[in-house]
C-alpha cells in the first residue's frame, strides 16, 4: 500500500509506473531526479510504483502486479514477451487515462527483440538447461503493438530532463515538448565538432532521435543509436556514409541490431544491405537517392 493515501480533498493527479521486460533503468531515472523527487510527490500522488513502494492492498488481497487504479498517468517500461504480460498491458490501458511508454524496450521492443530475428527455442536452449520451465513468446514487441499509446519517450535509457518534461506536461494538461529531430542538432547546440567530418568516426547521429544531449560525440565516440530512429531517417544515405567511414557490412548490420533493433525504421537495414549485395546497382541508386532527397530535408 502506498504510504501516501491522500485525503478526500486530495486533488493531486495520480501516477503509476509499470514494468514489463526491461532492465529497470528507465524507472530508476525517476528516482534519479534527486532534486525534484520530493517536490514531485507534493504535486503528484504516486499510487503504483513497485520499485519504490509496496503494492496496493494487504496480505493475500494484494493486487498481483495489476494495480486497480484508475490512474491519471501511467509510465510503462519494458516490452511484451510473455502471454501474461500481453494480458496485463490491456489492464494497464483500461485503468490509465494517459499511457506513456518510457524507453527503447517499451517503444521498440528493446535489445531482447533480437529474438524476433532468431529462433527463440535456440535462445532458450542456450541460456537454460531446462527450457521447459520457461514460458515466453517468440517475439519481444513494443507496447504500441498491443494498446493505444499516448506518447512514446525514447532512449536506452530515457533522459531525466525529458521524463520530467513529459510528467509536467501531462499533469498540467499540455503536450510534451519533445523535439523529433536528430542527434546532429544536439551536437551543434552543444558546440561539439562533428566527429565524422573531423575524424571520420562512424556515427549514427544523422538517423538517431535527439534527447540524450549528444553525449557520445562529446566523449569522442560515434552515436550508437540508443534513442532509436529520428523522424524520416535516410538510412540508405547513412549506410553509404558508414561504409565510407570504414565499417564492414557486418559492422553495419550489428550497429542497427541493438537496442532499437525491431523499430520499423532500423529493422530493415540488414535487408537493405542484402539487396545491395544482390544488385550492385542498388548501391549507386542509393547514393543518387541521397543527393535527390537532401534538399527535402529540413535544415
Amino acid at each position, binding site marked *: *500500500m*502506498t*504510504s501516501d493515501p491522500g485525503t478526500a480533498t486530495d486533488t493531486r493527479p495520480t501516477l503509476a509506473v509499470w*514494468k514489463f521486460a526491461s532492465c529497470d533503468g528507465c524507472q530508476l531515472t525517476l528516482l534519479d531526479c534527486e*532534486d525534484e523527487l*520530493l517536490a514531485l510527490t507534493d504535486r503528484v500522488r504516486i499510487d503504483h510504483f513497485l520499485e519504490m513502494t509496496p503494492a496496493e492492498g494487504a496480505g493475500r488481497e494484494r493486487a498481483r502486479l495489476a494495480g486497480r487504479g484508475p490512474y491519471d498517468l501511467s509510465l510503462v517500461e519494458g516490452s511484451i514477451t510473455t502471454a501474461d504480460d500481453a494480458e496485463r498491458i490491456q489492464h494497464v490501458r483500461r485503468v490509465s487515462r494517459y499511457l506513456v511508454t518510457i524507453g527503447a524496450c517499451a517503444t521498440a521492443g528493446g*535489445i531482447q527483440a*533480437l529474438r524476433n530475428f532468431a529462433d527463440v527455442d535456440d535462445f532458450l536452449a542456450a541460456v537454460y538447461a531446462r527450457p521447459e520451465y520457461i514460458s515466453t513468446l517468440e517475439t519481444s514487441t513494443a507496447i504500441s503493438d498491443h494498446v493505444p499509446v499516448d506518447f512514446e519517450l525514447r532512449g*536506452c535509457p530515457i533522459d531525466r530532463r525529458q521524463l520530467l518534461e513529459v510528467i509536467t506536461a501531462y499533469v498540467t494538461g499540455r503536450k510534451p515538448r519533445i523535439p523529433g529531430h536528430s542527434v546532429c542538432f544536439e551536437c551543434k547546440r552543444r558546440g561539439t565538432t562533428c566527429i565524422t567530418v573531423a575524424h571520420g568516426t562512424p556515427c549514427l547521429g544523422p538517423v538517431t532521435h535527439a534527447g540524450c544531449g549528444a553525449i557520445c560525440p562529446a566523449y*569522442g565516440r560515434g552515436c550508437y543509436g540508443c534513442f532509436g530512429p529520428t523522424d524520416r531517417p535516410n538510412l540508405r544515405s547513412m549506410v553509404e556514409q558508414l561504409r565510407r567511414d570504414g565499417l564492414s557490412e557486418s559492422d553495419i548490420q550489428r550497429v542497427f541490431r541493438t537496442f532499437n533493433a525491431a523499430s520499423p525504421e532500423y529493422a530493415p537495414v540488414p535487408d537493405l544491405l542484402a539487396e545491395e549485395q544482390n544488385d550492385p546497382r542498388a548501391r549507386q541508386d542509393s547514393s543518387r537517392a541521397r543527393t535527390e532527397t537532401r534538399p527535402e530535408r529540413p535544415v
Partner: protein
Amino acid sequence: MNDRGRRVLRLDSLGRVEGEAALHLRVRDRSVTETHLRIYEPPRFFEAFLIGRGHTEPPDITSRICGICPVAYQMSACQAIEKACGVTVDGPVSELRRLLYCGEWIESHALHIHLLHAPDFLGRADVVGLARDQRAAVERGLRIKQAGNAILEQLGGRPVHPVNVRVGGFYRVPAPAELRPLAERLRQAREDALETVRWVAAFDFPDAVCDHDLLALCDPGRYAVDSGTPAVMAARKQGRALREFPVSDFEEHVQEGQVPHSTARTATVDGRRFLTGPLARYAISGRWLHPVAAEAARNAGLGDPARGAVCDNPFRSIVVRAVEVVQAVEDALRIIDGYEPPPRPAVQVLPREAAGAGATEAPRGLLYHRYALAADGTLTEARIIPPTAQNQTAIEEDVRRAVQARLDRAGPDADEEELTLLCERAVRNHDPCISCAAHFLDLTMDRT
C-alpha cells in the same frame, strides 16, 4: 487458510526491490517446509544473442541487463574480454575505472539504504511516508545518491548505461580540472555518509543469524571492488576457514541449478549454499577498509574489521552498506587527488581465438562473465552469473529462518500481515536485483 495447522502465505508482488518477484511459503505443523522465491521477470536471453557479436560489444550490450548496476556489467565484461585477449589495463585508466565503479556503489547503496530499505526499520511503507517525518534523512540520502551519479555523469556520460566505457579503457579521459568539482561534492558526501552510518546504526534490528558460506573477491591491500581473486569464507559452523580459487575456475566451483518456479538460476559454491554481497565483502575485505570507514564500522557496532569482524545478522546489512558508502567516497577522493591523465584513454585490445573470465563486485555481490572469442573477435560463447542468482538459495534460507523463528514464538496463528512484512524484509536485506537474475518475486505461503 488455517486448516489443522497448515497454511499458505503468498506475497504476490514484492515492493521496493529492483525487478519483480514473488515469494511462496508452505507451512505444515508449525514448520516451514518450502520457501520459493519466484522470479517472474521474463527471460531476455542475453547469453544467446551475444553469440555472433563482436568482442567490443559486451560492455554496451550487457549493461542493459541491469539499469541499477550497469557499470558492474561493463567492468566484468571488459575484464573477461581483456583476459581473453591477453591485455592488462593498469595505471590511471584502471584507477578511473575504479572511480566510475565507486560512483555506482555510492548511487546504488544510497538508493537502497534511504529509499528502499530504511522504511522497513521505521515502520513506513515507502520513502514518501519516510520523508514526512524524516525529511532531512531522505534529503541527505538523495544528496549522497546525487554525488554518486555526478561521478557517473562526469566519467561515464550518464548515470544509467554510461557511454564512455570501452574494452581497453575509455573513449575519453577527463582533465584533472574536470574532476575537481567532484571532489568538492564528495567531501560533503563523506559527512553525509558518516551521518547515515550513525542513523542506520541506531535502528532496531531483529535477532537473526545467517550461516551461509561467504563469497567475495579478495584483493590484498585494498577493499576489493573492480579486481581480486574469488575467496570463500566457510560458514561459522565450519570454522570460517578461508580459501581462494582463480576466476578461471569459477564455474567449477560455483555451479548453477535451475528450478521450476523461477526464470533465474540458483547456485552453490563447492556444493554449499552461499552468500555474496556486502556481508561477504565485509568479512573478507574488512581489514582493508579506509581508516575512516573502519572507524565508522566500529562505532556502528560492527566489531573491529581490522581484526576480521564478521557481521552475520542479515538485517544489519544496511549498516555494512552505509560503511561501504563511506569507503567508496574515500576511495573516490583518493583517486581524484592522485589523478594524472594517462597518455592514451584506452589500451588497444586485438582479438584472438581464446576464452577469458572476469569478476568484479557489483553493489549487491560478485558478478562473473566469461566469453570465448573466434580469431576475428566474434563471440562464440557467453556466460554471465549475476549476484542475485547466486544469492537466491541464501535468501530463501533467510526467509525460512525468519518465519520459523516467528512461528516458534507466536505459534501457528502468527499474524499474516506481520509474517508477510517479515518475509519482505528478509528479502530486501540482500538488495536483490531481479532484473539481473532473470535472466531472475509473488509471496505465496502455502499452509495446506
